[in-house]
């Protein structure tokens, strides 16, 4: 079964696939330009000392987003096996 939720709630070290970027158009464009496009696999890799912003990995590059921007991006994961697309690397940290 597929789960859909905002990227912001993706737990540290987990990954998902972007299903939509719902920000207003200029922001959405900048987000997509950085590789966070529909269909791309993202992973929450590290959080700032005070929890916001958070850093997401997409195609080996890392993009920092504030809560607002990351909440406007919707990702989907398979309920159990969210990291299938990254063979062999799943769940490195917790």
């Amino acid at each position, binding site marked *: 079964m597929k789960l859909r939720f905002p990227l912001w709630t993706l737990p540290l070290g987990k990954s998902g696939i972007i299903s939509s970027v719902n920000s207003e158009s*200029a*922001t959405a*464009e*900048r*987000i997509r*330009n*950085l*590789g966070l*496009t529909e269909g791309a*696999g993202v*992973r929450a*890799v*590290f*959080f*700032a*000392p*005070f*929890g*916001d*912003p958070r*850093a997401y*990995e*997409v*195609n*080996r*590059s*890392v*993009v*920092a*987003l*504030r809560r*607002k*921007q990351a909440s406007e991006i919707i990702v989907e994961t398979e309920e159990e096996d969210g990291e299938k*697309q*990254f063979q*062999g*690397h799943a769940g*490195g*940290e917790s």
Partner: protein
Amino acid sequence: MEKNNFRVMLAGNPNVGKSTLFNLLTRKNQHTGNWTGKTVDFSTGLFTYNGRSYSLTDLPGAYSLLSFSPEEAVTRDHLLSESSDCVIIVLDATAVERNLRFALEVLSVNQNAVICLNMTDECEKNGIFIDSEKMSAALGVSVVKTSAAGKKGIALLLKEVEAVCEGNKKPESAELSLIDLSTADSRSSAVSLLTQISKRIIKDCVTIKSDRRNESQQRLDKLLTSKSFGIPAMMLLTALLFWITLVGANYPSEWLSALFSLIKSGLNELMSLLKAPEFLRGLLIDGVYTTLSWVVSVMLPPMAIFFPLFALIEESGYLPRIAFNADSAFAKCGVNGKQCLTMMMGIGCNACGVEGCRIIHGRKERLIAILTNTFMPCNGRFPILIALIAVFFSGGAEPKSTLLSVLILMGITTLCVAMTLLVSKLLSRMIGGDSSSGFILELPPYRKPRIIKTIVNSLRDKALKVLGRAMLVAAPAGAVIWLTANISINGSAVLDHCVGFLEPFGKAIGVDGVILIAFILGFPANETVIPAMLMAYTQSGTLTDYSGYGQLSELFSANGWTALTAVCVMIITVFHFPCSTTCLTIRKETRSLKWTLAAFLLPTALGILLCAVINCLYTIFA
């Protein structure tokens, strides 16, 4: 420019190595740095290849030709309007998916291009293999693998550029010429077509082993942004940077001033041999030469240590992490974490910092970053702080007093940052306009800096800059100051009249007339502030040899300075009107006289306010 010059442009995503390539080809010294948005304006240089000369333009990085940020607009306008013989599209091979999209956008408007797959030295490590021939066939233009940092593949790149310029190579992609990005209607279909093509090419030409970064990068990021270690690491690094600067600058400063005073006595003898009039001797030696040598011996050494080290940190990729760690504080004040990057550029030079504010997209956030940029002491003011700390709070070179100096310097830096945040918060409430542009920042991989190259470049750059300013601004300023101190009206010197006029006001905020005059005369270049004070204090208007900090301290105390005066002077050093160059840059960037005036008055008012508060507190508690 000669007629038969070929015109070549460098375009690409941010942080892919365009400026590095530009420097390599033109032997220029454009700033490079491992973060996105280092270059915000274009610059042009020349090189020759096979007997033909080429003019090369380095453009700011852009993620897309469809975007609207000011620094990206520079790139778009150049690519769309300027005629060029060849565009070198520089791609970061390790992020080829994202980069290729930009390449396709450029190709759809201009197919006289060569694709330069840069950073190929990092590909293998990241498990990426690109078939450049296949890619070239798919795109219809040549694809060359290079490493700008490792100087690999450059010859081949130039050969392909030559072929395109000579017209020997005709682009072959019919598919791309169909794409029309120019009108709004065709744009959305164009964008989806581009995405489709880019996906297909990636699938055909690129083998990617993993979507993850390598382990060591991840571990470093976890550590440097962690809750317990992220902020302390930042502090420790700053302290270390200050410590090395203070310890290291001591000796060369002494050597230089010894050397300068030796030359000075030689010059004086020469003057008396030539029977030069006293007026001329005074003007040239006591005015010009002494100011010049003071600037060089006191300003140059700390800068020559601080900035190469800072450049190393910049090349390593740590700066964007600082912005990442600090963003929540900036968010609370209604501004953008990228302001942190522009503040750090401001430490080098506020004019550069102000220009760098183009990386901030929100109009209001950018304006606030510009207005508060001078709250960070630039390289003309930093050494004033160091000198005052050495004179008043911790003379001597033993570890304990150095540690104290470092702590005081950290304290001042904290005050600067705190004031930036506070004022940003106030401004963000006061200025109307658009809401937050959010924080969307790419964090580039950590890279091992090319140590020697970075140090040499930054040394040459800083030394030239300090020396250039010393010659062009400090020397004439020295002459002017000497003249004001030696030309009398109604029996006393012009300088004394001005000092007398400002004295009551100076006293009211805990300083004196001389100090205020020195800052006003320092408008063209803050480097001259202390020499001006010295000249005004020594009655004859001569700067006798203040080679050591010890003599400086005597002179200051003789003129009524206390530790409180020194604190106020340090505060005014940080918080007063921007120098003339910075004012001009602010004018250019804001295109508004009103905001330039605001940028002038804001720090001045803040400085006066802080001094007044400190004096009040002092009289109440002491």
